[in-house]
């Protein structure tokens, strides 16, 4: 009887140590799985609506037209889904003023490059997105470099696929057409096609 109690106490003590360790293991395993689960990601949700290697201007963000949760309705959006495995993608965008923003995301939502507009001065951006497997630019995956001058920086990004999101601030109904016309001037296309 005493021996049995001792055994039970020993088991309970062992479990007191094992349970937190097993819980921590479960916790870490779950987080690691979910950080690479793209089934509900923005890229997965947007991809079916976006043509490849060209900018698409999204409709004005409303409760009916919003394609993503928590998508900021203070912006107009132009989005390019790119795939550079068949060759580099050239992207150009004009950040007209403060509030404009260009961000290039990989399928996991990581920002590979991000630029903001500057107050009272337009910023012309020229970005080349190259494939990663043949080290097109001699860069590691998920790296970006920039060159050129401050007025027209040339940016190189290494990524096989992802989305480029151009955000233009909504300045009110009177400016909507003007802002959307400015968004239409941005380009996203295979580099060979542009030559």
């Amino acid at each position: 009887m005493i021996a049995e109690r001792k055994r039970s106490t020993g088991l309970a003590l062992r479990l007191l140590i094992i349970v937190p360790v097993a819980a921590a293991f479960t916790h870490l395993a779950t987080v690691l799985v979910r950080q690479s689960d793209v089934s509900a990601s923005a890229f997965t949700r947007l991809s079916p609506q976006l043509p490849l290697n060209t900018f698409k201007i999204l409709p004005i963000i409303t409760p009916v037209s919003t394609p993503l949760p928590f998508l900021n309705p203070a912006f107009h959006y132009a989005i390019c889904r790119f795939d550079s495995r068949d060759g580099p993608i050239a992207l150009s965008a004009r950040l007209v003023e403060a509030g404009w923003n260009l961000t290039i995301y990989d399928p996991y939502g990581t920002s590979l490059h991000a630029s903001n507009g500057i107050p009272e001065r337009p910023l012309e951006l020229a970005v080349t997105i190259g494939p990663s497997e043949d080290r097109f630019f001699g860069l590691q995956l998920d790296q970006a470099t920039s060159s050129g001058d401050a007025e027209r920086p040339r940016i190189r990004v290494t990524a096989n696929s992802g989305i480029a999101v151009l955000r233009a601030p909504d300045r009110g109904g009177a400016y909507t057409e003007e802002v959307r016309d400015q968004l239409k001037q941005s380009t996203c296309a295979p580099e060979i096609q542009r030559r």
Partner: protein
Amino acid sequence: MTSIELPTPSVRPQYALTAARAAWSVIHRTLLIATAAAVAVLGGLWSSRQAIDTGWPFATTTIDGWRQWQNAGLVSADPYTRAHYLSIGSLPVSSEIGGEFEARTDDSGARLHSSCNYTLAGTAARGVWWSVAVFDDSGRLIPNAASRHAFTSDTTAAKADGSYTVTLGRDARPGNWLPTGGAGRLVVVFTVLDAGARLAADARGTRAAALPVIQRDGCS
């Protein structure tokens, strides 16, 4: 002639008792191990969900009820931040060039709800672009006849000193009013974009200076 009654051997009950004790011991151990395994798995799943949904201190910062995932969109982001944005399916503004702050409570810590009216009061630095948008608890925009869902530094009527107020409420109000009727629990998202030059990692905290204070004006 007297008869002597010999004690009957009690072998059988002893065996039965021992067998019962052994069986109970096995059941007891099995239950203990099963309970421990359930606690470990459920505890691990629950804590990971909490950490991914609401963030832990090393992944998020909270300032006066405004929560920010400080490594949002960064290549060096921690697994919790990556999992958070992948699971909700939104596109974060990269922490390199701006900040996204989310409030679910007012300045007294009470949950934001569409049955109450709120005033957001703040002062933004000149040249800094910001926006404030209101969503329901699931990140959906709130339908309203005025088609108003956000204000920005461009569209807000600010005072001469740069300070501004934005009101949230069911009924129309003069000034910068965002309708919230019928939404239930609310989430307010404040976005600020850096002006021009990128901020060093240790200077990114200055973005919080633009955050408005959310005060409850009353509930119906």
